[in-house]
């Protein structure tokens, strides 16, 4: 086990009493509780953590936060494997396994590093240029090889064993970010008594204050603020929680990494939780990110942001290098330089500015750092770790040995969340940075994100904004801590991004995507002038870090190439998520059996007892067939269909949509929504009806019964029940508010069983004691509410979907189970057979009844053979637009039946219809909508929509399934295959 030889003997906020063992690429190391994986690796002197995306260049740890572009590792193993996790955000836990990515055979020797040598042939967009030929489909051949050679980590293919959750929370004030400004804002709101939520993405709250020494005044201030906040019952502080999206209505999406810092989540504890936070007011105190600088080989391991080096030093007690060069173009790097020097490192500061403020540089100089004004790094040396730099200053060029380069290119406010609301940030020339703009009244910013980098100013601003969010004047601000860091925004005229054209080495702008200065210039030469085009052509700013360290430098380069200023060049669009979010966290517990709400009829348990095979139909679980009737769906459904045709069957019809329609104007209402008329329907009778959308296409069909003078009971198809219900409510609320009608969904109130077949009446007479089923009492299309002798209430409809004598029997849902058992028991003497959805569908196809396969939103009344329902006596929804010329065209596809010439040849739903022997090209003259084996006719049959419709009866055409390479001859026939006279209804 390696020692933590770069760990300082004192300082930091790590727990020295709690060592943590971990493995990186198989080697065992030790860190401390409170470490991140990055700090633990650095404590052990490991800078090399991965290979770059395209060129396989060695890369190291750049940052100490979410902006990390390089140190992406695959954590854990087996089903808990998770790739692309920034080592800077992964908290160290005992036994943690980490692997580097995108290298073979090992990190220190990667065979595909040859890409770097061939990089002149691999510029931005090379694959779109080089791999397009020689044939049109050649890319399909190259793509897998290119993807294999490039990329990030690989996910596991096994199921994630961990638990994820979602939760809603509401608050008066939400503070995003827990640095100096965020703490002040939260305190101001909390003291005003408001419900406050505070989000901090790290395990420890404090933001940039954590870069201050652990024995500093800033630390005391931080702890005091947190002590007060956590003691308040009205404050919820969520650590390890990243706000990833800011949405309308004061909603913020955030992910809490509940147990990512543990080896394995405890039982019943989620790994991550997604919060939907609903806030009256939001304070964004999201801070700022330091920018790197450009020079040759600026991507070598051991080159990191100056603020990150300071964080590792003061928070983790890790000295990331012993011989350090600090390259800066602003004041903020001098705190790092001073503290690193004070910790014993040899520090040399190369400042691009010629004139330096003595008060800023003095602490560093006093600590022993050497400072060179007007000096910049031309290029870095070393391969697996930086070994030196070539400095270019007033005295010319000279080399300097080092094992760490700290870069400080100024600060970019983290405007991402604020900009997600659609307003692009504004460039403030006085800061050399973009800041949020155009925020709505319920969102405010404080601290570095707003351009206020100095700690005292940030605290004052946070206090003021927090008070305003709480609706009070918070008064005089709390005292601010003293910090060593100087403000790091750039002066207005400082557009220096470093040395884009060094004497040696590639200059990278975007480390994660291997985008160099030359790639940006190439994009510009090839005409990609917009930053949005630049992003898409080069992939700059994409990936897990979303270009947090690269975007501004790239903008400056593009602005320079275009001869424009930065505001004119603009920024790309900011979209959620701010950081990658695991799909599991978004799903929460809505996975597996709970993926979506499941709907079961009141007889569901009973069907399970009877070994039903189920099929999903929307949210419903419906019996498909019963395994007791056959070993597969075909065998069982044929058995079930035959039972209905020859004897009697029963099917669970509870999924039908059911709508209670009541009111003095109910008949007039139905007249308007249905094609056919309802005013003359007598009480105790039902009628088949069809309704259109207002564009003239068929919306749905079903039966509606008149239970009383002003009371109707409507049934809809299973699939359209919710649509029809919403449509009726919409019409009553908006189109005809004057109608005295109420519609109420009663789908859940009623269980329904259809009993069909020649013996259906006998079975029901035996089952429903005391209920008169005589044809005089309940004729075809009759309806009656009744009560059995033992008090079981039933509603009977004499309607048929199969063409046989049939009844729909309804009872309140809680009695559905009892009703089924009763009919089943009474039917046992007749050999009653339960049937499922497959048989139900086959029976209706034989009878030519259209369902959703035919009423598919594109068919008219005439298309499905229901044109005669419109007698022209009244107006109804859709009656105007249904007469558009195109909807009456002679070549519209209309409902027909198909029978194969060879009766044993099965037809395929979705197959195309072509003229006999015609070339199979295009969409043909029709398509098959429904297929079944007809037990009655002993042949396969189908319903189809074919141009010309029934005028083609007798024609021989071809049914084609290109997918299956099948073609067979079929005859166009009537869609009503059996009993066209309807005599069986009275059998």
């Amino acid at each position: 086990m390696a020692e933590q030889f770069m760990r300082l003997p004192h300082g930091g906020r790590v727990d020295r009493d709690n060592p943590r063992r971990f493995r990186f690429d198989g080697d065992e190391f030790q860190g401390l509780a409170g470490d991140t994986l990055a700090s633990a690796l650095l404590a052990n002197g490991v800078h090399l953590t991965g290979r770059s995306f395209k060129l396989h260049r060695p890369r190291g740890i750049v940052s100490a936060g979410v902006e990390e572009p390089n140190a992406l590792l695959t954590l854990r193993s087996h089903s808990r494997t998770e790739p692309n996790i920034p080592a800077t955000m992964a908290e160290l836990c005992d036994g943690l396994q980490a692997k580097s990515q995108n290298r073979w055979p090992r990190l220190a020797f990667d065979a595909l590093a040859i890409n770097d040598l061939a990089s002149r042939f691999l510029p931005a967009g090379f694959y779109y240029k080089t791999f397009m030929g020689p044939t049109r489909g050649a890319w399909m051949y190259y793509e897998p090889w290119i993807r294999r050679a490039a990329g990030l980590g690989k996910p596991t293919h096994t199921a994630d064993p961990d638990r994820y959750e979602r939760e809603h929370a509401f608050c008066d004030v939400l503070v995003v970010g827990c640095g100096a400004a965020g703490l002040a804002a939260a305190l101001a709101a909390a003291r005003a008594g408001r419900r406050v939520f505070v989000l901090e993405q790290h395990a420890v709250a404090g933001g940039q204050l954590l870069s201050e020494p652990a024995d500093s005044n800033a630390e005391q201030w931080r702890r005091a603020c947190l002590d007060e906040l956590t003691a308040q019952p009205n404050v919820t502080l969520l650590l390890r929680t990243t706000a990833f999206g800011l949405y309308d209505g004061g909603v913020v999406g955030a992910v809490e990494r509940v147990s990512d810092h543990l080896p394995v989540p405890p039982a019943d504890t989620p790994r991550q939780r997604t919060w939907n936070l609903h806030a009256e007011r939001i304070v964004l105190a999201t801070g700022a990110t330091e920018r790197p600088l450009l020079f040759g080989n600026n991507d070598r391991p051991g080159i990191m942001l100056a603020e990150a080096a300071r964080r590792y030093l003061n928070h983790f007690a890790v000295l990331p290098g012993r011989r350090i060069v600090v390259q800066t173009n602003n004041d903020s790097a001098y705190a790092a330089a001073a503290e690193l020097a004070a910790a014993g490192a040899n520090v040399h500061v190369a400042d691009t500015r010629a004139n330096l403020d003595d008060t800023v540089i003095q602490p560093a100089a006093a600590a022993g750092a050497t400072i060179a004004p007007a000096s910049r790094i031309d290029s870095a040396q070393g391969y697996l770790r930086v070994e030196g730099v070539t400095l270019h200053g007033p005295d010319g060029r000279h080399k300097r040995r080092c094992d760490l380069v700290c870069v400080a290119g100024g600060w970019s406010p983290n405007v991402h969340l604020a900009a997600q609301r659609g307003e692009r940030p504004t460039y403030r020339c006085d800061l050399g940075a973009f800041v949020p703009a155009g925020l709505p009244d319920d969102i405010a910013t404080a601290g570095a994100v707003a351009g206020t980098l100095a700690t005292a100013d940030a605290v004052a601003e946070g206090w003021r904004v927090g008070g305003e969010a709480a609706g009070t004047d918070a008064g005089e601000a709390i005292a601010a801590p003293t910090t060593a860091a100087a403000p790091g925004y750039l002066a207005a005229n400082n557009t220096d991004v470093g040395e884009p054209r060094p004497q040696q080495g590639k200059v990278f702008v975007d480390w994660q995507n291997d985008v160099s200065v030359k790639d940006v210039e190439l994009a510009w030469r090839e005409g990609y002038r917009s930053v949005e085009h630049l992003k898409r052509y080069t992939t700059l700013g994409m990936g897990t870090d979303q270009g947090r360290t690269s975007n501004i430098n790239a903008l400056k380069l593009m602005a320079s190439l275009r001869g424009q200023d930065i505001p004119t060049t603009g920024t790309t669009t900011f979209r959620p998520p701010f950081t990658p979010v695991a799909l599991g966290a978004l799903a929460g517990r809505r996975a597996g059996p709970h993926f979506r709400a499941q709907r079961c009829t009141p007889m569901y348990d009973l069907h399970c007892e009877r070994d039903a095979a189920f099929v999903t139909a929307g949210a419903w679980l419906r019996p498909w067939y019963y395994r007791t009737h056959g070993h597969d769906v075909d065998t069982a459904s044929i058995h079930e269909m035959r039972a209905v045709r020859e004897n009697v069957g029963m099917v669970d019809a509870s999924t039908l949509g059911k709508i209670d329609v009541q009111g003095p104007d109910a008949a007039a209402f139905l007249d308007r929504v249905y094609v056919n008329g309802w005013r003359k329907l007598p009480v105790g009778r039902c009628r088949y009806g069809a309704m259109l959308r207002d564009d003239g296409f068929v919306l749905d069909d079903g039966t509606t019964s008149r239970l009383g003078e002003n009371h109707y009971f409507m049934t809809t198809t299973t699939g359209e029940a919710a649509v029809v219900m919403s449509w009726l409510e919409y019409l009553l609320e908006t189109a005809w508010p004057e109608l005295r009608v109420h519609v109420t969904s009663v789908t859940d109130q009623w269980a329904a069983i259809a009993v069909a077949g020649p013996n259906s009446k006998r079975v029901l007479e035996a089952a429903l004691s005391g209920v008169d089923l005589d044809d005089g009492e309940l004729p075809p299309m009759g309806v009656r509410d009744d009560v059995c002798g033992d008090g079981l209430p039933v509603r009977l409809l004499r309607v048929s979907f199969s063409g046989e004598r049939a009844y729909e029997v309804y009872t309140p849902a809680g009695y559905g189970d009892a009703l089924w058992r009763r009919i089943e028991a009474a039917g046992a003497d007749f050999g009653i057979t339960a049937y499922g959805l497959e048989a139900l569908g086959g029976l209706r196809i034989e009878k030519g009844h259209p369902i959703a396969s035919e009423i598919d939103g594109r068919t008219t009344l005439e298309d499905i053979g229901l044109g005669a329902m419109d007698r022209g006596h009244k107006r109804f929804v859709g009656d105007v637009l249904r007469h558009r010329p195109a909807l009456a065209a002679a070549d519209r596809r209309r409902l027909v039946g198909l029978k194969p010439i060879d009766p044993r040849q099965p037809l395929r739903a979705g197959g195309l219809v072509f003229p006999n022997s015609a070339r199979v090209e295009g969409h043909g003259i029709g398509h098959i909508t429904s297929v079944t084996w007809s037990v009655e006719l002993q042949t396969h049959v189908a319903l189809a929509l074919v141009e010309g419709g029934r005028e083609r009866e007798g024609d021989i055409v071809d049914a084609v399934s290109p997918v299956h390479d099948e073609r067979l001859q079929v005859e166009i026939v009537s869609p009503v295959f059996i009993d066209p006279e309807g005599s069986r209804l009275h059998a």
Partner: protein
Amino acid sequence: MPDIRSPLAQHYPLGRHGAAGGEPTVQLREVVGWDIVQAACWRGQEEALEAALSDTLGLPPPAPGYFTANDATEIIAAAPQRYWCIAPAGDARLAQLDGAITDATGCLTQLGHSHIRIRLQGPGVRRLLAREIAADLAADAFPVNRAARTMFHQVPVMLQCRTADPGTFDLYLPHTYAAGTWRYLLDLAAPFGYEVLEGLGYTEAG
């Protein structure tokens, strides 16, 4: 009259579960033996409906978003111009609504079998419900006698707050969604530790 069968009948794991053996912070049970009649009125007939409800049920109709209750009867403002009138199954007062609300005023719809009623109680109940319900359920934002039509796992539900501390809520699940939603609710409750209790008769539920 046959017994009413609950869709939860075969999915009702009595006893303590979840939270790795810790003390349960949520108790769940089905409330049975009640009936709902929806009373609705036409536009302009609101006062007539409210008077009829008040006279028949002996309860003032609630303001929107609330319910009123006495020992055996409740009225929930279910939607504009609609109230759910709840009473013990077979209670004569629900039947009397038929005569009290005429065609000129509005209409009645039987909904007693359309929902399953779950009672949730305990210190963890608000956070449990917040796992799915996008409504502010804090004691001062959703006080006792508050009711809301909302969504739970894509399912339309009615929620009532009955006591503040510890929180007691009644959740009405549509009959056909009840079994799946109940199982999902138990799954959500695991981190809190939960106890499934025997079903509770409506009049005992209070």
